[in-house]
């Protein structure tokens, strides 16, 4: 899976001064300067914590966009960890933005994602599953299978079913079929499981 990140280049000394100025602009009152600073810091991995911190309080859409974009450019596990923390934001837009950014990190997000799927907070697990929609089936399916087999929370399993309708293969059939028994009071699970099962059926090897 291709990775979106800046080329690793040693930053000359003068760029550290620029960083201080950019960090100051990042926290300033001018949205235009904040957006400029956010994008200018896209090559600076040490600025990642500051970018993530600004996301917690940023109200301007275009600045938020630039902050997420730069975190994706910086990439790597540190950026993934910072994005994972943003899944707990009180702001739904920041949570969704973090999910989309984690998708764009591709392989680099895998260790962080696996940790998130074990998080005690069902809302974090739910959001994390959506990230696997961007993964190839061979990476997504084992995670989905584990969730479908063991996650105790119905909405988390619904999220896994939804991703499975697009990404799933027949490895998931057994887990999907067992879901209604795991959630006997949820008719929606029966419906969603039926849809997922129908969509993962393969036509390989079928005769006309």
């Amino acid at each position, binding site marked *: 899976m291709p990775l979106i990140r800046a080329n690793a280049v040693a930053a000359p000394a003068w760029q550290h001064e620029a960083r201080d100025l950019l960090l100051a602009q990042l926290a300033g009152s001018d949205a235009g300067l904040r957006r400029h600073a956010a994008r200018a810091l896209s090559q600076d991995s040490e600025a990642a914590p500051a970018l993530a911190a600004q996301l917690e309080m940023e109200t301007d859409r275009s600045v938020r966009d630039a902050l997420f974009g730069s975190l994706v450019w910086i990439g790597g596990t540190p950026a993934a960890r910072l994005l994972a923390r943003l899944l707990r934001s009180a702001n*739904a*837009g920041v*949570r*969704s933005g973090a*999910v*989309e950014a984690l998708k764009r990190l591709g392989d680099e997000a895998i260790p962080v994602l696996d940790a998130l799927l074990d998080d005690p907070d069902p*809302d974090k697990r*739910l*959001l994390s599953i959506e990230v696997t929609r961007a993964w190839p089936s061979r990476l997504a399916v084992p995670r989905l299978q584990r969730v479908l087999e063991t996650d105790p929370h*119905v*909405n988390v399993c*619904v*999220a896994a*079913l*939804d991703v499975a*309708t*697009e990404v799933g293969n027949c490895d998931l059939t057994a887990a999907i079929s067992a879901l209604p028994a795991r959630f006997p009071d*949820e*008719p*929606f*699970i029966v*419906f*969603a499981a039926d*849809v*997922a099962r129908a969509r993962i059926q393969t036509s390989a090897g079928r005769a006309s």
Partner: protein
Amino acid sequence: MTLDVVPPDEGLLPKILLVDDATVVRLYYRQILEAEGYRVEEAINGVEGVEKALQTAFDLCIVDVNMPLMDGYALLHVLRGDAATRAVPALMTTTESAAEDHHASLLAGANAYLVKPVPRAQLALYVAAMTGRSVT
């Protein structure tokens, strides 16, 4: 925009906009609502929700919270800020069960909220009530 109160056996059927990024959720609600006689359109995120709401006079918008590009709160904010959509009834669906999130839904401009997964009967009841259909 006025809310037309139209009994189901007369004239136009209420039009519902479903805004949710989950495929299975949109399928489920569509099945329920079409069986009840409603006309249904879909959007996958808040931006598409705004586009559709600006082009068609819906009788009700069912709006999820967690969606890419524009979440449900931001969508409501836009709808309530535009004269064309200010008064469209909005039912927010949320996976959050905490009370303060429910208050947030109402503060954002939703007329009601439901916690997912939404039972069929509850969805039908709320939609009927919010589109002015008599409930028997």
